[in-house]
């Protein structure tokens, strides 16, 4: 997958390993908790970035897949006493099946039909979370979800969840990078380059778009399961349309055509409310402003920032030297 990515993964792993040391600094001691949510969000945005940047499709329903994972884990473990890992896999299976149902008709067509189909799908799922009270407890939310455990070790602390969730997120990062640097990644890039030539080379565009959509839905579902077991309480507003839109923003702000951008975007937007507390309910203005500035000046997102800065200053530096 290339030297840069391997260095990046090692660097990220080291950063994640050492980050909890910031817990000793009292002003930012709660940042580790926020980083758990960055990890969960990054699981979703990495899949979404693959879908948007490589398959060229937009989903407005990823909050719903996140919710499906969360509710599957919550309901199956609490109501039916299932093993949490089995519940997670049932959530994954459910999300994959629904991704096929929602994705196949719209991805066989060209254009942004997937965005519309997932918008409707997300709303339906949200209504079910709210309305099917006997199953989901509706707006009251679903609580008493147990912590995850493996071989007798219970992930009952923030720190253990932090490491577990980032371990899974980094595995997902490697998984996605592997896909990008494979025949499938090249096939997806070729569709971007020339759909005509790609089809003449035997690339079945619709098939790969559906596969990527399923993978991204499954990643969101897994994130949802970990979310449910970490927070131990889930309620519908977490999985609403606004969160789906925020996920899109993260991917765009980070830089669509690069998976690392999805991590940067997830981190920035998850930390942002923390830094915008003084704006109270007006923090949405800040989101809008950031999105506007990024799309105007950084079409490749924050990931493209070094390149833009270099292009801006390199000629001047050269001129002043020469």
């Amino acid at each position, binding site marked *: 997958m290339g030297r840069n990515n391997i260095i990046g993964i090692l660097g990220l792993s080291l950063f994640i390993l050492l980050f909890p040391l910031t817990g000793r600094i009292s002003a930012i001691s709660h940042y580790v908790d926020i980083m758990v949510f960055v990890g969960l969000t990054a699981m979703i945005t990495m899949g979404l970035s693959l879908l948007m940047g490589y398959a060229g499709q937009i989903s407005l329903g990823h909050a719903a897949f996140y919710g499906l994972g969360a509710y599957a884990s919550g309901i199956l473990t609490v109501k039916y006493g299932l093993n949490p890992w089995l519940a997670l896999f049932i959530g994954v299976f459910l999300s994959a099946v629904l991704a096929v149902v929602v994705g196949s008709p719209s991805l066989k067509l060209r254009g942004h039909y997937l965005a519309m189909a997932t918008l409707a799908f997300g709303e339906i799922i949200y209504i079910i979370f709210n309305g099917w009270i006997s199953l989901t407890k509706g707006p009251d939310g679903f609580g008493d979800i147990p912590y995850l455990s493996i071989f007798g070790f219970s992930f009952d602390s923030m720190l253990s969840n932090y490491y577990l969730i980032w371990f899974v997120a980094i595995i997902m990062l490697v998984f*996605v990078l*592997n896909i990008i640097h494979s025949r499938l990644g090249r096939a997806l890039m070729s569709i971007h380059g020339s759909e005509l030539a*790609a089809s003449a*080379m035997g690339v*079945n565009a619709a098939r790969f778009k559906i596969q990527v959509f399923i993978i991204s839905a499954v990643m969101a579902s897994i994130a949802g399961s970990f979310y449910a077991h970490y927070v131990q309480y889930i309620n519908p507003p977490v999985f609403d349309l606004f969160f789906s839109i925020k996920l899109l923003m993260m991917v765009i702000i980070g830089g669509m055509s690069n998976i690392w951008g999805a991590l940067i975007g997830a981190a920035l937007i998850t930390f942002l409310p923390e830094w915008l507390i003084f704006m109270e309910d007006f923090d949405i203005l800040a989101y809008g402003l950031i999105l506007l500035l990024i799309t105007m000046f950084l079409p490749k997102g924050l990931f493209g920032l070094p390149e833009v800065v270099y292009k801006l200053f390199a000629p001047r530096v050269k001129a002043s030297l020469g």
Partner: protein
Amino acid sequence: MAESESILKVRRLSKAFGGLVAVFDLDFSVPRGIIKAIIGPNGAGKTTLFNLISGIFPSDTGETVFQDRLITGLKPYQIASLGISRTFQTVELFKEMTALQNIMVGRHVRTKSGILSVGLKLPGSRREERTIREKAEYFLDLVGLSHRAHEEAGSLPLGEQKLLEVSRALATEPELLLLDEPAAGLNETETESAARLFRKIRDQGTTILLVEHDMNLVMDISEEVLVLEYGRKIADDKPEAVRANADVINAYLGVELESA
């Protein structure tokens, strides 16, 4: 099973765009293992015919049979996987990918690792990835572009872009190769080396069907020539016979040959 004599048979094929008839009631076949050229004035339906064979446009009527299999109505990617590959009149490379990556996409139909297998880097997919790279390097070398392997395809000069497209098509290891004006925009030396390359491809067993305006090239390398005018066939014969055909001279060739 005996190998059929013709690799491609086109029967009563027609295609109109609105009122414009691009291909009309066309019958012809391509014997296996030869180079066959399609010539005709601009707008004769040559490129449309390629798009019909490769499945990019659906035909209005008629059928196309490739290696005894009806391929009419199949999607382009299905036709490609059956063994027909092509180049485009206006170069259609994946411009932002490197030259080598372009050819690696050509290996797509010859490989099969799925999304989970490549994501988890299972041993099968690792082996396959190695083979893809080796084969891609071989086909890049075949057209003499090894030194360009890691350059962006869009940054290469036109002549090399055309060669790269041929190489990408060859990387699918097709039975039938469709070349749409491969010599357009090439200088004399480049055209000569292209001719050598096409003969080599044919000698290695790939049948070539090409659309070309360069008459010297056509007469030089083809075993058969199909002449179209307004979407209809006016001749389909050996190059010498086509050269002598009065209809062809009237329609197209006269001026060219006098000046040559």
